[in-house]
């Protein structure tokens, strides 16, 4: 319960600190390393975690069960 409360508080604090970033100020935000999307390498990591852990990460490529013999 405490964890949930801390996460909600953190979320509110982060959103409250939002500032409009103009196009010429996006040098850091537009850096390839700053993108939130996943490349093929991240996808494969998520795929491994989704098989080896019963609890799969959000955004994982695999949502169905799979063979399971591995």
């Amino acid at each position, binding site marked *: 319960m405490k964890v949930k409360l801390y996460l909600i508080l953190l979320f509110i604090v*982060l959103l409250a600190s*939002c500032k409009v970033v103009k196009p010429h100020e996006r040098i850091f935000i537009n850096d390839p390393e*700053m993108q939130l999307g996943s490349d093929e*390498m991240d996808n494969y990591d998520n795929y491994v975690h989704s098989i080896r*852990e*019963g*609890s799969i990460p*959000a955004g994982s490529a695999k*949502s169905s069960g799979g063979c*399971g013999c591995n």
Partner: protein
Amino acid sequence: MKRNFLFAGSILVSSMFLRAQKADTVFKKKIIDKTEIDIFYNHYSQDGNNSAVTGGIGTEKLTVYAPSIKIVRTKKNNSISFKGGADIISSASTDNIDFIVSSASKLDMRSYINLGYAHEFTKKRIAIRAGTGISIESDYLSLPVNLGATYTSKNKMQVLNCDFQMNFDDLRWGRLNENYHRPVRLIYPSELRYQTWFKTYKRNSFSLKLGFQQVLNKRNVLGIYPEFTLQKGLLSTPFHRIYFKDSNLGIENLPQLRQKVLLGIKLNSFVGGITILKNRVDLYMDDFGLKGLALENESSFKLNPVLTLSPSFRIDFQKGSKYFKPYGMHISQEIFYTSDYDLSSMKTYQFALAMRYLALKNIGRGAVFNDIKFKYAYYWRSNQLNAHIFSVLFTGLVDHALKKNHRKP
């Protein structure tokens, strides 16, 4: 009078000059016409002693060689994607379905193809996408269908994603067998083939994946990803043995309905001039009683304009399923049971180091070799399973507009 002629002449000449210049340098909106290519290879090597095939004891030794290629062709607002690959699996536990242990473990293969189409409505800042494919291995066929949309706010501060993903799976064996070439039956352990253990062989999964990205300020971006999944059908693996306390032998039996709720939170921060911190939290729960909390940090250091080094650490805490018990601990009067350690209580650690080299090398005719990325990860579970994961990714681009210009004399 002479002066007027000179003035009129100079205006005429200059206007002709301007017209000529206009024809050469007038602004043309560039039409996007490109092909992106990703070539990926992963080598996965694992060992452990809790194989579900032998009831929670026995070797989990496994090697997977996984090459794949992804091609995305974009023209104007439309893009078509293709992804194809194979997982070549050498697994000791697969031998134990029949207890035929060869010196070199049995090889199996999963092959897959995915096709996708996306269209962007530029003025509305909305992109829609759809995709399908096929994944096939000796005892598994999966047909995925995806539909999705992305909305970007006018000031590009927020991005909203919504994807609906369906997987229609069939767990029958026989498609790749030279004597059948069609689905025949579920594969049970050799000594348990005297009866039919499951009436269904289908497994259908439906996932709603949402995403909300918010630029917080010049250096921070936040992503929140809730996800809901419903699975129906045969959720047990038909060749996972169960050794009961009373010496009976059976097959893993799990409910035919499973609901999962996931929440992923990502925060990327550019700190100072060369450091990017990528933090991620994943929360998970389902009605099998599994709960998970994963924390991950990747710190990327831009050593120079072309080289980035990224060490990372991930820890996962998992509370096991209410249906899990180790080898010989289940009683045969129970309705649902499994000895699959993937569903047990455990902690998981992963240490990794990635290196990205931004080559940006022009290899002619509009083709550019973008970058190469290597990653090594060591994965360790508190029940002693461990894995070495090595990956390499090449990305390239062909600019067809540039290629056409090259052809012109």
